[in-house]
């Protein structure tokens, strides 16, 4: 039942799409039908796979660095009161500057390779992870901290044994957002200047009016993003399995 309903929805949308294209006789270079897109995707599987691998590495590296950086800054802000005044402004300003506006500069500095794309993804991911995790770390149940203090726990031990585990559900929300936006960073980076990747291929095919190939690249990108999201979501569910016990929805 879990997969039946989404499948019906997607098959329905694809059928509607195909019906529109066939019924209204829309030119294929404006909107190719889903069947044509799948045909191209299969035909050019090798090329698409090569570009997908580039984009995938950019996304995964961005996720890795962004999550690491976000986790560390959240921990520093939670542990050292005085650090908050230093880190918070950087955090806010880093979000005030649109990452898209930075893309050309990053390409100028780091070239057409993978580096500026990883940086873009890192910058996009950094904020939701930091904000969510820091929020979670700040909102520890005060009674737990009191209890730990009467038991003779050190500040570091309270952080490790109580505040971090208690903040994991918040961290998970941040990481879910990050997983959803990571592909945006990578693809925008590719659009600004690159020689490989799904974003690059989409621009290339757009210029050659091979709209069906462009859609095929988009399809692969969507599949990639959805897969990453669900893998991360599954991992996070395992990490905070104790929280599912408290979720009233799971008792339906």
């Amino acid at each position, binding site marked *: 039942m879990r997969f039946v309903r989404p499948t019906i929805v997607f098959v329905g949308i694809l059928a509607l799409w195909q019906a529109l294209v066939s019924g209204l006789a829309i030119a294929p270079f404006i909107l190719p039908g889903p069947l044509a897109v799948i045909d191209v995707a299969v035909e050019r599987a090798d090329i698409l796979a090569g570009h997908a691998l580039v984009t995938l590495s950019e996304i995964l590296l961005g996720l890795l660095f962004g999550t690491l950086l976000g986790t560390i800054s959240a921990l520093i802000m939670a542990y050292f009161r005085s650090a908050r005044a230093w880190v918070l402004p950087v955090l806010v300003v880093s979000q005030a500057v649109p990452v898209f506006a930075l893309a050309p500069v990053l390409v100028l500095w780091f070239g057409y390779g993978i580096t500026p794309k990883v940086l873009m993804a890192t910058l996009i991911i950094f904020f939701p992870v930091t904000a969510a995790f820091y929020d979670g770390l700040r909102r520890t149940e005060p*009674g737990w901290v*009191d209890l730990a*203090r*009467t*038991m003779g*726990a050190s500040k570091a031990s309270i952080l490790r*044994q109580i505040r971090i*585990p208690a903040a994991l559900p918040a961290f998970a929300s941040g990481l879910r957002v990050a997983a959803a936006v990571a592909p945006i960073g990578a693809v925008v980076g590719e659009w600004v200047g690159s020689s490989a990747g799904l974003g690059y291929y989409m621009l290339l095919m757009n210029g050659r009016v091979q709209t069906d190939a462009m859609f095929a690249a988009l399809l692969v990108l969507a599949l990639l993003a959805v897969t990453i999201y669900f893998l991360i979501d599954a991992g996070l569910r395992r990490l905070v399995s*104790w929280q599912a*016990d408290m979720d009233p929805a799971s008792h339906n």
Partner: protein
Amino acid sequence: MTDADLNNHNPAKMLGLDVCNARLAWGETVLLDDFSFSAPAGSWTCLLGESGVGKSTLLRTIAGLIDPVTPTEIRAHDGTGLTSQVAYMAQQDLLLPWLSAVENVALGARLRGERADQTRALDILARAGVAERANARPAELSGGERQRVALARTLMEERPIVLMDEPFSALDAITRTRLQDLAVELLATRTVLMVTHDPFEALRLADTIFVLRNNAQPADAPIVPPGPTPRDPTDPALRDTHRMIMQRLTERAAPAAGGAT
């Protein structure tokens, strides 16, 4: 493990505590002033007062969670401070939802980076009547079971003094009575200081009762209800004690009434 073995784990010494000239202030407002009392070693002392009188704050001060306001003095009967002599039990069970019941019982060792004595934790859980729930997460436990685990966690800490902040008030009447009986049994060798707003709970559990009132009044003489604990608060023998408690609790309006006549 036999009872004798368990007793070996109980705190070797019994230790009472004194609170002298306690003052509680909220900004400029003095809630409580010049309040002194003594909790004798191995006995159960209740601080009884209505909500907002500052009993929880006083208990948290004794627990070392709040810095005492000058000239408050808190000391154990052996002349030392109270650090690492007290175990604290709050109104909520404060069980960590990601740990099992037995891991929660052994939380103190985990927090201090010591090796947890698993056998002893399981044994204390058994004494608290929740042995079969050892591996359950708090979310799977009933309110009564959770408070039993919290009581076991308090016992696991080998502290001579146990501070309790209305730990049974969130339970239904029958569960509360059972937990009170269990606490009297398990905490028999410890010095217990408990704050409560419930005169019946004080009558049921306390060897000595101090009534806390606002208006920064000094403490009255302690009330000592007759007979061993746990008592039946509806026992006619306690009627006079109950009347005295209620009188003291309601006395705070007296100065104003006196001024009007």
